[in-house]
C-alpha cells in the first residue's frame, strides 16, 4: 500500500464541525425543569419505553391528568428530540427510538382514562403504485407520529384509487407520497387529478429518490419534500399558516 496524508486529499467536515457538547449535555439544557416532567422528557430522549411509563405512572399518581401529560410531558420531550435532530446533534435512530417510546407513553396515558386526547391532525401516507421502496415512507410516517400527528399508513405499491378513497374517508390535513422510481412517480399526477376532480385541495407532499421539485411543481397540489424531516414541518406549517400550496412551495422548494 502507498502512504498518503489524507488531509491532502479530503476533509472530514463532519469531524471538523462536530459540536463541543455531547447530545446528552445539549438535551439536558432543553429539558423542562419541572420535576415530574423532567424524567419523562429525559426517558423519551433516551428512547426508554419503560422509564417513560414509569415516569408517567408517578406523574399520574401525583395527580396529573393522563391526557394533559401527552402534551405537557411526552410532546415536550419529543420536541427536545426533534430540535436536536434538526440541529444535527442527534441522529435519526435516536428519533425513531424516542418516537417508539413516546407512542408507548401515549398508549399508556390513554389506558389510564376514558377521555380521548384532542387530535392534532391526520396525515395519510403511501408509496406509489408499482413501487416497493418503502423505508423512506416509514421514516416519514414515524416522524409525523413523533410530531403528534395521526398517521394513516397505506403501505407500499398503493393503487391510485385507494389513495383517493383514503383521502375521502380520512379527510387528512395532508397526503404524502413516496416514489423512488421514475416509472412509478407518475401516479402522483393521477392522484392529483382525481383529487382535483373531486374537489379536494389538500397539500400533497411528495418525496423519495426519483421525485424532484420540477416534477412535483407540475401538478396543482404537489409540494416537494427533500428529507423525511420536512414532512412534520409541512404539517406544522399547514396548521399554522393554512394549506396554501403556493406558500408551502415557497417554504419548502429549495432547488
Amino acid at each position, binding site marked *: *500500500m*502507498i502512504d*498518503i496524508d*489524507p488531509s491532502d*486529499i*479530503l476533509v*472530514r*467536515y*463532519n*469531524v471538523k*464541525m*462536530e459540536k463541543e457538547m*455531547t*447530545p446528552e449535555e445539549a438535551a439536558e439544557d432543553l429539558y423542562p425543569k419541572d420535576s415530574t416532567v423532567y424524567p419523562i422528557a429525559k426517558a423519551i430522549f433516551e428512547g426508554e419505553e419503560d422509564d417513560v411509563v414509569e415516569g408517567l405512572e408517578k406523574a399520574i399518581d401525583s395527580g396529573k391528568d393522563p391526557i394533559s401529560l401527552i402534551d405537557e410531558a411526552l410532546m415536550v420531550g419529543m420536541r427536545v428530540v426533534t430540535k436536536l*435532530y434538526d440541529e*444535527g446533534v*442527534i*441522529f*435519526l*435512530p435516536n428519533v*425513531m*427510538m424516542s418516537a*417508539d417510546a413516546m407512542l408507548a407513553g401515549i398508549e399508556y396515558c390513554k389506558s389510564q382514562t376514558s377521555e380521548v386526547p384532542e387530535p392534532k391532525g391526520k396525515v395519510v401516507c403511501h408509496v406509489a403504485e*408499482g413501487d*416497493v421502496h*418503502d*423505508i423512506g415512507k*416509514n*421514516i416519514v410516517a*414515524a416522524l409525523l407520529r413523533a410530531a403528534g400527528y395521526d398517521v394513516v399508513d397505506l*403501505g*407500499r*405499491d*398503493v393503487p391510485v384509487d385507494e389513495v383517493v378513497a383514503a383521502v375521502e374517508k380520512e379527510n387528512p390535513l395532508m397526503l404524502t407520497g413516496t416514489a423512488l*422510481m*421514475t*416509472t412509478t*412517480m*407518475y401516479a402522483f399526477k393521477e392522484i392529483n387529478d382525481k383529487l382535483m376532480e373531486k374537489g379536494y385541495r389538500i397539500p400533497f407532499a411528495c418525496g423519495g429518490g426519483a421525485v424532484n421539485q420540477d416534477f412535483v411543481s407540475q401538478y396543482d397540489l404537489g409540494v416537494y419534500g427533500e428529507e423525511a424531516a420536512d414532512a412534520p414541518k409541512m404539517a406544522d406549517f399547514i396548521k399554522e399558516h393554512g394549506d396554501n400550496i403556493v406558500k408551502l412551495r415557497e417554504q419548502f422548494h429549495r432547488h
Partner: protein
Amino acid sequence: MPVTRCTKMAYASADEMVFGKAVKPVKAGLGLEIGAGYTTPEVNYAPRPEAGESKEKLVKEYERITTDIMARMVQIGAPSVVLETEHVQQMSNNPEWGAAVAHAQKTIMEDYHDEYGIKCALRHTIGDIRESREYLELRGGNKYNVFMEAFEQCAQNGADMLAVESMGGKEVFDYAILRNDMPGVLYGIGVLGSMDMEMIWQDIASVAKKNNVIASGDTDCAQANTAMFIAGGLLDKNLAHTLAIIARSISAARSLVAYEAGAVGPGKDCGYENSIIKAIAGVPIAQEGKTSTCAHSDLMGNLTMQCCDLWSNESVEYHGEFGGTTVQCWAETLAYDCALMNVALDSGNEKMLRDMLAASDMYRDAQGYVLAYQNAYRVGQAIAKDGNDIYLRAKNAALESIKIVEEGARGKLELSRFESKALADAKAALEALTDDKEQFMSDCLTKYKEEVKVFKPENYGLK
C-alpha cells in the same frame, strides 16, 4: 443445484487482487470474457416514465437506449461493453415483456457485433416481485412462479446473464437499522437473507444452466445499500457510518450465497460487498462509484474501482444532454475509466493504480476503510473461517469490520465522537451474542415476531 459453502480464500493474499482479473473469469455474450485481463464498462439505464405505458413503447425505448450506447462505443473505439437492464416491474410481472425487451436489445447488439466486432453482452436483472402490499411473499405460490418464469423467458430470448437484487430479511432489517439494532441487522441480512438466497439461487442457477446462459449474481441492495444511503454523506445525520459498514460486512456473508448455490459472477454493480466476495470466491465483479453519481452519491468513488471487472454507472434515466443522451454520456465516461485501468494492466502498473484508487477514499469514512482491498480481504477471511455456518460467518464479518475500524481510528482514519460511540455500542451488542446459530435464531424469531408486525416466519420456512 447443490450448495457448496466457501471455506477458503480464492486469493492467497490481498495483494493479488486487481481490477480486470479474476481467478475464475466468465465468458459471456458475444466474444466477451469478464475478469480475463481487461475491464469493461457496464451501462445501466432506466426508461423514461412515459415509456412504461405499453409493451411496445417500452421495447422501443430500450431499442433506442441500446442503439445509442452501441453507437457511442464504436464512435470512441471502445473494445467491449456490457448492457444491464434492470427490469421495471412490468417486465418481471409480465415475463413476456422482459423477454421482448431482451430480444430487441440482443438483436441490435448482434448487429453491432457483426458489423464492428465489438465484444458485448446483455445482463437482465429481474425485479424481486415476491411481495404484496403488506408482506413479503418469498416462497411458493404464484408470485414465485412468475418470478422464475421471468428468468426463464429472458434467458431464452437473448439475456446472456441473469441477476437479481433479492429482498430476503428486509422486513426485519428495515426495523432494526432505524433503531441502531445491530443484532437485528445481523438476523435480517446474515441469517434470513442468506436463507432466502440459498433457495432462489439454486433455482436461478438451474434456469441458467438449462438455457446455457450465465447465472451472474445478487447484491444486498435491499439492505446494505439502504443502510449506506440512509447514512449518506459526511454531514447527514440519519445513521452512523460506522453502523452502515457493519451492515455491509454482514452482507458479504449473505451475497456470497449466490456463488455457493451455482452463480459464477460477475457480481452485481451495486454490491459494495463485492471486493470481499471476490477475495473469497474468485468470481469477477461489477462495481460502481465515481461514475455512478447519476444514480447516487457515495464516499468511495475511486475505491470501488480497485478490483472491479465491470465498471458501472448503476442507472441513469434516459434523456437528452448537451453531449448526447444520458446513456451515451455515462457509457463514454465509463469507457474512459476502463481504458485507464486497461492501460495499467497492459503496462504492468495495475497494482500501483489500484493502490491509488484505494488510498483516495479509505480515509474518507469508515466504509471505505473497511472495503479497501486489504481490509476487505480480512473480512473475507473472517467469513471463510466459519464458512459453513451462515450465522457465525456473518457475525465474524461484523466483528472483524469493527476491529478494522478501531485499528484505523488509531491511525489515519478520523471518526467523529458520534461514530465512535455508535461503533462501541454495536460492538458490545454483537459481542454479547451467542455463538450458537440455533439459539440466536430462536431468540430472534421470538423477538422480531413480536416487534415487527410485517415479519412472517413462513417466508423463510420457519415455524
